[in-house]
């Protein structure tokens, strides 16, 4: 005899529960987590390094680095004097909440501040997996072209803040800033968009100020 059982449960329920637990634990320690997402080479590590330097000195500042393989980025963060822990997925295309939960004990979370999570370079897969972060920061860079918001709508739609990086290339490319901003407005109206470059340094101070304001607001107990 056949019968139907209605379930109505999110497929990612297990991940989302761990993400909520991560978020609670970080908040209890006064920490704001930022999930940094972008295509490979858009400038995630460079931007994180600049923000680590620009954010208040007395705050905790650390990074969870996600890559398929290698510890290249973790070594850069450690050389700059900030704590960093590497996750290698060995082929996985995104970080998961469980991966974050498993590495949190490796940090000395002794004061309030910011924990950056540099996700795997990918404009598609990280969208579905909450990690327990407070903010989703999406980077798009000028050399990638101005059509990314309409080609990869989901990641731009879920962003809390969007950073256009490598603005120093604007003068040398046919990137249309209006087209880029219009595409963002169609998928995520009123999301803040910051224009930055890492080399030479530009726009970082304004972005850091926004991060401070939004982390303070979000991680209030």
């Amino acid at each position, binding site marked *: 005899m056949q019968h139907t059982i209605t379930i109505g449960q999110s*497929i990612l329920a297990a991940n989302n529960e761990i993400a909520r637990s991560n978020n609670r634990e970080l908040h209890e320690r006064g920490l704001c987590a930022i999930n940094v997402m972008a295509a490979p080479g858009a400038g995630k590590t460079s931007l994180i390094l600049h923000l680590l330097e620009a954010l208040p000195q007395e705050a905790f500042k650390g990074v969870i680095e996600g890559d398929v393989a290698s510890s290249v980025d973790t070594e850069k963060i450690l050389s700059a004097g900030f704590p960093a822990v590497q996750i290698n997925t060995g082929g996985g295309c995104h970080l998961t909440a469980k991966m974050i939960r498993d590495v949190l004990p490796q940090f000395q979370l002794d004061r309030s501040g910011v924990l950056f999570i540099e996700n795997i370079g990918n404009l598609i897969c990280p969208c579905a997996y909450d990690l327990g972060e407070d903010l989703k920061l999406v980077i798009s860079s000028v050399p990638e072209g101005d059509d990314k918001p309409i080609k990869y709508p989901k990641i731009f739609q879920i962003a809390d803040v969007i950073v256009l990086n490598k603005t120093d290339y604007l003068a040398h490319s046919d990137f249309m800033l209006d087209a880029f901003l*219009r595409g963002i407005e169609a998928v995520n109206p009123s999301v803040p968009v910051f224009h930055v470059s890492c080399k030479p340094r530009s726009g970082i101070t304004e972005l850091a100020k926004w991060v401070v304001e939004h982390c303070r607001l979000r991680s209030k107990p």
Partner: protein
Amino acid sequence: MHESAIAASILDLVLHALPDQQQRITKITIVAGVLAGIEPSCLELYFSELAKDTAAEHAELILQYKDAELVCQTCGNRETFQGRGSVNIECEKCGGLNRLQGGSEMYLDSIEVEG
């Protein structure tokens, strides 16, 4: 997208939902928004491999897609977006800027069991 991880989550959910482990699951209905990025043939491939020797081994996987919508921010006109082709960022009625909404859900709707 990473259908292997999605297939594993589905299998886990359906096996937990089975009231009696002697029963067999004959149908699994998944609802996925067009922006959730699930490719059906990939999902079926991974699911059939993972479900071998389980109560879901011969289950038929049914994927019901939910469209996203483009809603004009000026006149409120609605167009469906089925996940492929261009995102029409301009309203076909008034030329105003559209807003992309919905199409992101991904949930296990129901299972059919026998036995």
